């Protein structure tokens, strides 16, 4: 593949907090249209890495580009080119679905016509027209997550970051959510998703596994399984994470 095909390039990206190194020289690329899984135990540095890529946190050293923009120097341009859905984020609870869509559409600079058309299209796709004028507070969590994801795509960003999007969601909704992710990726949008559900890792085109701030494994799920001779990503994850844990407890 050529470099024109790369939407995220990270080289030696590092972030320290005082004497603690949260992210330690990570290097990886993400291709256009890929579903890239970012795995790691809690505290492994996933969220710190993502916060650097989306411009919420300045890197200590190393550099990275997202959609062709340097994250350190052009973080505001990065922001126009990405969508983001955090683990905490659901939409504003006291606004209706439509109002939330209008707010974010407006912030990303869509015209009134674009906002109206894309909102309708989104509602149709999700089969959610009936509740378009309900306050988000009254909508069940699973639906909220799907709506939040769709709203973050309203401005058609080339890349979207999902930080543990399926936390606290039932298995059926989780399945539906992944269908939504696939649909999005098929439309050409790159999806970078963090998760600690290992079955979800199997759905990704490629995964990276972070342990103690470093990327210990990177590749397609089948490549990784055969390389390490394990039956599932979960086994691999446990194998990689364990030495670090026992080292930490010494």
């Amino acid at each position: 593949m050529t470099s024109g095909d790369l939407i995220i390039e990270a080289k030696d990206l590092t972030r320290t907090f005082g004497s603690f190194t949260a992210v330690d020289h990570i290097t990886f690329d993400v291709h256009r249209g890929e579903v890239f899984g970012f795995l790691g135990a809690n505290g492994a540095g996933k969220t710190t890495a993502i916060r650097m890529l989306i411009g919420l946190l300045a890197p200590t050293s190393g550099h990275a580009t997202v959609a062709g923009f340097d994250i350190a120097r052009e973080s505001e341009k990065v922001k126009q080119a990405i969508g983001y859905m955090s683990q905490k984020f659901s939409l504003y609870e006291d606004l209706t679905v439509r109002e939330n869509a209008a707010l974010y559409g407006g912030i990303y600079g869509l015209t009134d016509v674009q906002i109206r058309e894309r909102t309708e299209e989104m509602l149709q796709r999700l089969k959610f027209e009936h509740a378009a004028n309900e306050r988000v507070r009254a909508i069940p969590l699973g639906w909220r997550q799907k709506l939040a994801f769709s709203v973050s795509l309203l401005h058609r960003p080339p890349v979207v970051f999902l930080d543990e999007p399926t936390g606290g969601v039932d298995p059926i909704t989780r399945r539906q959510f992944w269908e939504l992710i696939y649909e999005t990726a098929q439309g050409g949008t790159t999806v970078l998703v963090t998760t600690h559900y290992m079955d979800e890792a199997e759905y990704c085109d490629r995964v990276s596994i972070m342990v103690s701030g470093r990327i210990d494994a990177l590749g397609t799920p089948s490549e990784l399984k055969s390389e390490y001779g394990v039956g599932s990503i979960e086994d691999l994850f446990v194998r990689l994470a364990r030495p670090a844990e026992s080292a930490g407890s010494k």
Partner: protein
Amino acid sequence: MRRIFFLARAEVLHIVRDKTTMAQILVMPIFQLLVLVNAATFVVRNTPMYVVDQDRTATSRGLINRMAASGHFEVVAVSGSAEKANDELLDGTVTMVITIPHDFEKQFVRQRYAPLQVILNAEKGSAAGIVQSYAARILADYATELGAELQPSMRTVSWNRTDPPPRRGAALVETRTRGWYNAQLNYKHYMVPGVLVALVTMIATLLAAQNIAREKELGTLEQLNVTPITRTQFIAGKLIPLWFLGLIDLTLGLAVGKLAFDIPIRGSLLLLFGAAAIYLVVALAIGLLISTMVETQQQAMFVTFFIMSAYLLLSGLFTPIDSMAHWVQIASLLNPVRHFVTIAREILVKGAGLTEIAAPLLTLSAFAVVTLSVAVLRYHKTTA
């Protein structure tokens, strides 16, 4: 501009849909004006008074009547016992004890000079001083009144002695007095403009501080931070609705002040709203600054309340700036509330124009520029 508009529209919806916020905005002005203006008064009325009358003459009774009729005092009991009076004073039933000594009338007629003992419970501070001056004033008036009645008899008394005859005319210097701007000495006319200032300050600062801290807590702030919205746009979108709200509250407060207390509006309302527009920027920027320093709504409210109470107490709203210790007077120049209290009173009560309020208005404008810049600079989309 479009981004600001969308954010501001969402902000208006947040405010309108939250019952607590709406209650804060609509009920607080009315509550504050009605309660605060009625309660916050240093005019002393109905001071409970005990009279120890050892003279028991027409003059002493007249004196008691004058005190009671003044409206400032309420004569709780009259007796001849000083011990009982002392007991009531310790008990807190009375605030003032007047002892009219034996021979009071006789001395007054003979020597034109009659001493009288006034004991005040100074436990209540400022009130004691005021009560004392009221009493002195009533006594002086009573003496003049008696003087007019006694003049003839006095002349005879004087004739018999070797004293020179009194000069004609009671007063050598005729003093006329006039209280400008508030001739009826209506305390409410003084308090309402100040309370209006307290009102817009609290609404603006508290809402601004709370609002952003709330989004921090909910996590929606992070979502906004990954959008391409700039911090100036973000702050404008957040603050403009609150700014309008402050002006609406001022209007509401003025209407209540006019209807319930018939406060004077002598100067230009346009000027008042213009000054308020500048002042609100300061109040909002302070709220914003607070929100950048805290993590939770609880902290935001707590810090805001702390800062507000100091600001309001040092603003000249309740007690005159001129009475404060010298260094506090100088320090209070840094208090934006002080300047707006001055402006509001000067425009509403004194009818001052732009030239008269130029100095505090310029100071406020400088504050607006400085606080807003600091708040914008301190607000970061990225964490360190």
